[in-house]
């Protein structure tokens, strides 16, 4: 048995499966979890791979440790999406973080991950974590000048994630952040045309709001093309100039992808990516 994802109209990506562990239709999307010999458990939403046990560490480390190392004083964090719990798990490794609000639109994703993906969702029960089942766009609209960090760990901009790629969302995030605030978002991929279009549009919208805005990259094998981007937008801190490598390394957080050398390196983008981003500016 194989799971096949149509990454584009013309490209397919297949993984051999042992069995399907979970399948359900929520109010928002189709949720499936497969067990596979190569990638372990795989979470699929609306026919798109969200994570696999084998490579989820790359995504989750890169979406959290980049902003945390840039400003280790972050105490109050809002995570939007992220129902699987992977982003929250990485955040809970910082003892200095006091509060993590997580806003996920689909309760069934959280419940399914708690039951079937314990290695990812294990820290959702941390006492600092508060889970809100709500539309992220609606949640940030009612928040002012509050968070040190907002992480947007969303699906692609079709379906329930659509509102998290809009100008009104980024503007409301800006408003919900305090004066030192940082916004990090999953930023799609530069390689295939449909993803590149979403990437350029997101770039164009975010740049309107934040004085500091840089894009960084990671290699995530199970995402379309494997080449994935993140956005780092900030009111004050520069992700490289303000990085205190020694300070982060003294925290002794054990990672498998992230390190402070990579931190600086991941902001140096291939030329074709830079060109695409400049088109949007």
């Amino acid at each position, binding site marked *: 048995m194989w799971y096949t994802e149509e990454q584009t109209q013309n490209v397919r990506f297949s993984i051999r499966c042992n069995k399907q562990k979970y399948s359900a239709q929520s109010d928002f999307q189709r949720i499936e979890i497969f067990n596979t010999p190569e990638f372990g458990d795989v979470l699929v939403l609306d026919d798109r791979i969200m994570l696999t046990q084998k490579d989820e560490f790359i995504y989750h480390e890169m979406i959290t440790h980049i902003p945390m190392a840039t400003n280790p004083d972050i105490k109050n964090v809002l995570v939007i999406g992220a129902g699987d719990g992977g982003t929250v798990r990485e955040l809970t490794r910082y003892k200095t973080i006091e509060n993590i609000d997580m806003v996920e639109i689909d309760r069934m994703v959280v419940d399914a991950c708690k039951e079937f993906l314990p290695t990812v969702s294990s820290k959702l029960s941390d006492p600092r974590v508060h889970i809100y089942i709500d539309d992220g766009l*609606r949640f940030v609209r009612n928040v002012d000048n509050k968070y040190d960090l907002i992480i947007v760990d969303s699906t692609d901009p079709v379906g*329930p994630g659509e509102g998290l790629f809009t*100008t009104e969302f980024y503007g409301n995030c800006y408003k919900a952040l305090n004066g030192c605030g940082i916004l990090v978002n999953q930023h799609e991929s530069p390689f295939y045309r449909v993803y590149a279009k979403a990437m350029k549009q997101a770039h164009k919208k975010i740049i309107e709001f934040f004085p500091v805005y840089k894009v960084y990259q990671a290699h995530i094998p199970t995402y379309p093309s494997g080449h994935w981007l993140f956005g780092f937008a900030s009111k004050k801190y520069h992700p490289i100039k303000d990085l205190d490598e020694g300070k982060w390394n003294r925290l002794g957080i054990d990672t498998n992808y992230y390190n402070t050398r990579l931190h600086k390196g991941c902001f140096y983008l291939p030329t074709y990516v830079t060109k695409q981003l400049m088109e949007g500016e």
Partner: protein
Amino acid sequence: MRLSQENAPIYEALREYRENRIVSFDVPGHKQGKGNPELTEFLGKSCMSVDVNSMKPLDNLCHPVSVIKQAEELMADAFGASHAFFMVNGTSSAVQAMIMSVCKRGDKIIMPRNVHRSSINALIVCGAVPVYVNPGVNKQLGIPLGMSVDSVKEAIQKNPDAKAIIVNNPTYYGVCSNLREIVKIAHKAGMKVLVDEAHGTHFYFGDYMPLSAMSVGADMSSVSMHKTGGSLTQSSALLLGKNVSEGYVRQIINLTQTTSASYLLLSSLDISRKNLALNGKEIFQKVTSLVGYGISEINKIGGLYAFSRELINGDDIFDFDPTKISVHTRDIGLAGIEVYDILRDKYNIQIEFGDIGNILAIVSVGDRILNIERLISALSEIKRRYSKDPAGMLEHEYIEPVVVCSPQEAFYSDKKQVPLDLALGKVCAEFVMCYPPGIPILAPGELVTKEALEHIKYAKVKGCNLTGAEDMNTEKLNILTD
């Protein structure tokens, strides 16, 4: 066999036609799409395969005897009318057919001045003379309202020879007049009541909706099925009450109606009627609750006023359509049209219209809570990022017209084109309006006043789409030669 609302006779006949794989040596020449591959790729094969001409099994809209007749009967049934006509040239054509069915050249017809241009167009064609009733005006919002019963009584007393009265149910903003009472006094005076229900389809299906024209005994009503009922753009229905001759109205419709009615439009009317009859209650309950949520959240933003049923005053706001999100924007220093433009250009949100002081978002069958959330968030952001001092903003949407001669007389008189400012004090020979909403600032036969010119210039500066004049840029105006 007696048909029920579960049937859709035109749709069923088209399916059968498609399955029969008939070889066609008739028009249209694309022959089920085979002759136009690019268009077929774009619109889809199933769409092209039923873009066909009238033929025996599919009936003929100009003289319906089989499936179209059945579909019209089901439509009439669903709306509580004695007859219904499927219309394929927009609700404008339905409005014109209503007026031309009851008025001849020189006849008087009573109407509120805030009618859609299609009503006044009908007067240009048939030569009837309007007697305008000034609608009420809400000073705070600057919008025209419904007609008060007293003003209708007065118009009837002064013009006992008028043939009919036109009522908007509701206005574009969602305001309803006391239709039941107006029907009563008009009928007592021997006048027909014609209702423009372009924005009122859902009144026939939802609970807790304002009264519909047919339910209070009006004589004719034009219903835009495509606006809130889910059918394809340009498809519409004309409903008749019990004392109107179906045959005569059909003759009037056929004066201007195409003889090649589109089956895409006809089947969309048929299928939408079925859906509304079976599921309308549930659909509009959902719509009303989405709108209620939207309104309460927008009113929490501050500075923006989403107005609704709290305005009801038993008179010129006798009722209010609960499916509209109408928002007054002047207090954040932005004209409605500016908010409309920002929503589209910066936030990828297209709303129905923006005018001087308000915007209108239409919520219908197809909307979801996530989209309402986007509209609310975008408005909250627009207030945060774009609001200005409201000082010096124009306050009124509505200008009282000074009628000098009938629209037809003005339109066909000798006229000349002069720059806007030189038109002051002259009689206008054409329309000037912002589109949407399509309510004339000036109509043919009206005096060009200082207020009207001010309004036109202001609307231009704010970016309204001004239409109607012969000069596409509305820098010059046609006036009657002295």
